[in-house]
C-alpha cells in the first residue's frame, strides 16, 4: 500500500464535502485523513485527503472522477516525495504534584514541541511534524501519562515551483498533455 495525498480545490459550498467523499465511498477507498479549509482565494476551499492504495492506476481514476464534480476546480494526486507535508498534534499530559517533571528542554529542542497551555495538574503540548515524528514524540511523552491526544489531518504543499494561481481558476483540465 502506498500513501497518496489528494489535493482538491473546490468552490466553498454546502454539501461539497459529501460530493467529494461519496466518490471514495463508491470506489471503496478509505480516507485516512482529511483536512479542509478555505484558501487565500475567497470562496475556494482546499481539501487534503490521504489514502492508501496499492494501485496508482486506481488513484488516477479516482482523481479523474473527483474532477467531474461540478464545483471542483482542480485535483492533484501526489506521492509523499512530491510534497512537503505536516500534521499537528496536541497532547494533554498529566503533571500531578510529585510526578517526574517534564524535560521542557528536550521537548522543545529535540522534539520541536511547545507547551501551549498550563494547568495545575496538566499541560497541553502542541507538536507539529510528520506522522512519524508525532508518534516518536508520543512514545517519548507516554510515560508521563497522556490524558488526551489528538492529531489533525495532513496539510501538504507540492514541491512543484508552480503556484496555485498557475492552476486556478481558469486552468483547463489538463490530464493528457
Amino acid at each position, binding site marked *: 500500500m502506498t500513501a497518496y495525498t489528494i489535493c482538491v480545490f473546490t468552490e466553498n459550498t454546502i*454539501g461539497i464535502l459529501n460530493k467529494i467523499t461519496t466518490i471514495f465511498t463508491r470506489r471503496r477507498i478509505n480516507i485516512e485523513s482529511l483536512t479542509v479549509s478555505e484558501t487565500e482565494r475567497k470562496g475556494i476551499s482546499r481539501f487534503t485527503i490521504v489514502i492508501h492504495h496499492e494501485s496508482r492506476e486506481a488513484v488516477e481514476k479516482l482523481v*479523474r472522477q473527483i*474532477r467531474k464534480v*461540478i*464545483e*471542483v*476546480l482542480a485535483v492533484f494526486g501526489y506521492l509523499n516525495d512530491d510534497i512537503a507535508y505536516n500534521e499537528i498534534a496536541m497532547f494533554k499530559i498529566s503533571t500531578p504534584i510529585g510526578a517526574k517533571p517534564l524535560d521542557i528542554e528536550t521537548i522543545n529542542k529535540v522534539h520541536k514541541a511547545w507547551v501551549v497551555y498550563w494547568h495545575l495538574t496538566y499541560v497541553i503540548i502542541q507538536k507539529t511534524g510528520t506522522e512519524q515524528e508525532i508518534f516518536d514524540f508520543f512514545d517519548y511523552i507516554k510515560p508521563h501519562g497522556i490524558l488526551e491526544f489528538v492529531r489533525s489531518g495532513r496539510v501538504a504543499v507540492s514541491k512543484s515551483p508552480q503556484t496555485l494561481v498557475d492552476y486556478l*481558476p481558469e486552468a483547463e*483540465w489538463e*490530464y493528457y498533455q
Partner: protein
Amino acid sequence: MEFNENQTQPATIAAQPEPATTPELINGSHAVIQSLIAEGVTTIFGYPGGAIMPVYDAIYDYQDQVNHILVRHEQGAAHAAEGYARITGDVGVCLVTSGPGATNLVTGIADAIIDSTPMVCIIGQVASHLLGTDAFQETDVMGVTIPITKWNYQITRADEIPEIIAKAFYIAKSGRPGPVLIDITKDAQQKLMTKPFSHKKCEKLISYHPRLSPKEEQVAAAAKLINEAKKPFLFFGHGVQIAGAEQELLKLIEKTDIPAASTLLGLSSVSVDHPNYVGWLGMHGNYGTNVLTNQCDLIIAVGMRFDDRVTGDLSRYAKQAKVVHIEIDPAEIDKIVKADAPVVGDAKKVLELLIPLVKENKHEAWRAEFAKYNAIEDAKITQPELAPTTEKLKMAEVIRSLSDKTKGEAVVVADVGQHQMMTARYYQFKKPNSFITSGGLGTMGFALPAAFGAKVGAPDREVVTFIGDGCFQMTIQELGTIAQSGLPVKIIILNNNFLGMVRQWQQLFHQKRYSFVELQNPDFITIGKGFGIDGHTCAAREDLNASLDKMLASDKPYLLEVIVEKEENVFPMVPTGACVADIRLE
C-alpha cells in the same frame, strides 16, 4: 473571537444605485416558470404535491407557453423526460414535489446519468425553517441524489432562482450531458424576489470546462494510428448521436473504408444498409463484431465507454489491438480500456478535424471477414428466428415485420430484457436518432413513459415501443398519461408470460431452476381499454400482418399484445465472464 481578528475582512457592502422606477417584483414560483421559458422549455413532465404547490399555482398562468403533462407516477415523469430529451436533444424537464415525489424520480435520474441524458428536475422542498426537522414529506434529496446527478443544488432564496436554473440547464446540456436536480424550498417559491427578475443564460462556469475542441496533437496521433492500421475497427456509441456527428462518422468510415459497429445506444446512427456497417457489439451483439474485436489491430472508439456488456472478460479483450478513444468525458479515458491515442472532445468536432488527416483506403479483405461471420450467424440464428416453424410467434419475426412496415424509419423504444435485445438485433434501423432504450441502468418500465416522451418530442414521427409483459407492469399506469394526451404512441407487448431474460439465464446457468420468473398476467387489452386505449391481441402468425397494420393505421394510442413463444433464448451470447471471441451461437 479575538484569535481570528486579523484574518477577517470587514464586510463591505457596495452601495446599490436606487432604481429610477420600482419594477414589479415576482415571487419565486413565477421566477421558476419564467426562467424555464427563458431557457426555451416548452414541455414539462410533472406531478404536483404539497411542497411544489406554489410553482403549480404559477404554472396555471403560463399554460399557453408551457405544455405541462401530468404523469401518473413521478418515475414516469423522469422516463418521459428522458425519452423527450433523447429524441429532441433538448433538456427534459421534470417538476415534482418533495419527499416521495422526489424519491420516485430517483430511478429515472440514475437512468439518465448512466445514459448521458440531459435533464433538469425541479423538486419542491419543505420550507427552509423546517429543513432537517423530519418535517412532513421531507427527504434529504440533496444527499440522496449526489451520486446520481451531474449537479444538484438547493435553493432557499427566491433571488437565487434565475441564476441557478440557468446554471442547471448549462450543466445538463453541455459536455457529457446528464441530469441536474434543483431542490427549492417552499418559502423560496412563495417569497417575492428582492430584485427585478432577469434571466441570463449561463455560458461559462469557474470550475467546469467541458472540452469540446480536441487538442490537435491528440487528433494527429489518432490519425497516425488509423493510417498505419491494417485491420482497423470502429466502434460508435451514444456520443455520436448526442454530438449529432452521424454525417462526420459516415465521411470517416467511407474515406477510410473502416468497418463500423455500434454499441446498444449507438444503434441507428449508421444505417444497417451501409456497406461499412457490420453490426453491433456486446453480449447479444453480432457474431463477427465480437469475434473480430479480438483480431483487429486498431479499435477506434467514438463516443462510447466500453461498458462491461460490450467487453466481456477484460483480461482477454482486444489485447492485440491499439486503441483510439474519442470521448468527451476525460474520466472515461483509460477507465476500462487503456487508450493508446486518447482524444478528449466532442465527437463531431473531433471527427471534423480527423477526417482531413486520414488517408483514403480500402479494406475489402478485412471487411469480407465480417461478411463471413455474418453469413454463419445468418444461417444459424437470424434466418431460423425470422422464419420459425414454432407454433407460437417469435419475437424476432414480430420486430422484423414492424421494421419492414415502418421502412426502418420509426422511432423505436425498447424496454429491458429479451425483447430489448431482439429489437436491437432485428429492427433494421435506417434513420439516425431512432432507437431509445435504457442501456446503462437497464431500467424495466422505462419504455412506456419514454416512448410517450419521445412522441411528445417528435410528434411527426411514428413512435413504436416494444415492451415485455414484465416491464409493462412496472409503469403500466402511464397508459393514463398517454390516453389523456391522445398522442398516437404504438405499444407492442411481446408477451411470453415470463421474465424472459432472467429465465434464459436460469436455463443456461442455473440448471433450469426457474426461480420466480413466471407471471400470471392480467388481461392487458382490457386494462388498456379501461384506460381508454384501444387494442387487441395477436396470437397467431397468420394474424400478425393485419394486426400490425391495424395498429399502425390508428391515429390514436394503440396497444397490441403479441403472444410469443414462451421459452426462447437470445443468441448469440457472450456469457458473463467469457471473452468476446468465445461468443456462443447456441
